[in-house]
């Protein structure tokens, strides 16, 4: 409503728990920012790395 209802630091602290959800601008932006990154998927180098690690484990004596 008006500015006199603005949170004191103490109240803001207590309210933070509810304040990052999809109903808040910051909560939405956070998710949007993060989901953009997550949606990039898995670069090939990591799939290859895991395959290599697994291979090394299966054939430890090779070399």
């Amino acid at each position, binding site marked *: 409503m008006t500015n006199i209802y*603005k*949170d004191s630091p103490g109240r*803001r*602290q207590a*309210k*933070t*728990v*509810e*304040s*990052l*959800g*999809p*109903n*808040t*601008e*910051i*909560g939405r*932006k*956070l*998710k*949007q*920012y*993060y989901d*953009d*990154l*997550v*949606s*990039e*998927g*898995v*670069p090939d*180098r*990591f*799939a290859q*790395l*895991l395959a290599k*690690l*697994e291979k090394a*484990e299966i054939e430890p004596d090779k070399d």
Partner: protein
Amino acid sequence: MVVSQGFRSDLLGAIPSLRAFAISLCRNADRADDLVQETLVKAWDKQASFQPGTNLTAWLFTILRNEFYSQMRKRGREVQDTDGVMTARLAVPPAQHGQLDLDDFRTALQQLPQDQREAIILIGASGFSYEEAAEICGCAIGTIKSRVSRARARLQELLKMSDDDYFGPDAISTQVTSSAQE
């Protein structure tokens, strides 16, 4: 050892969120990917110490975060990139809609102190509870709470937002309140 089959695909599945967290920490995509790589190698070596049934992502985030801070200590302040020079190299594909908005948000996020940024990411984006975030960061639940609170206040300040966008409780809050008794 044949144990690794499931472990490998679990790791694979965790990589997208691991990368998102790494990029949020490093603010640099190349460095973030190196960090993810280190994390995967470490996790692989330590797989015997992972307890099946517990949260693999949280376990991996902990390893990644430890690795990040240990690299940071080795490299010194260089990692901090306070002037945002590396910002342009972030691996974020251009979106068509609301681009300006998200760019503003990203810039503001990058200006947060390291501890506040990781806290608000873990809670508000990665979807961890306060308890899990505290575990990942090796600190008290109350510390995470206050970091998130300060991060949020700072973001609002940077983005010149008011508190008026608050409409009511939601899924995250319920989940968080139940697991975060003080």
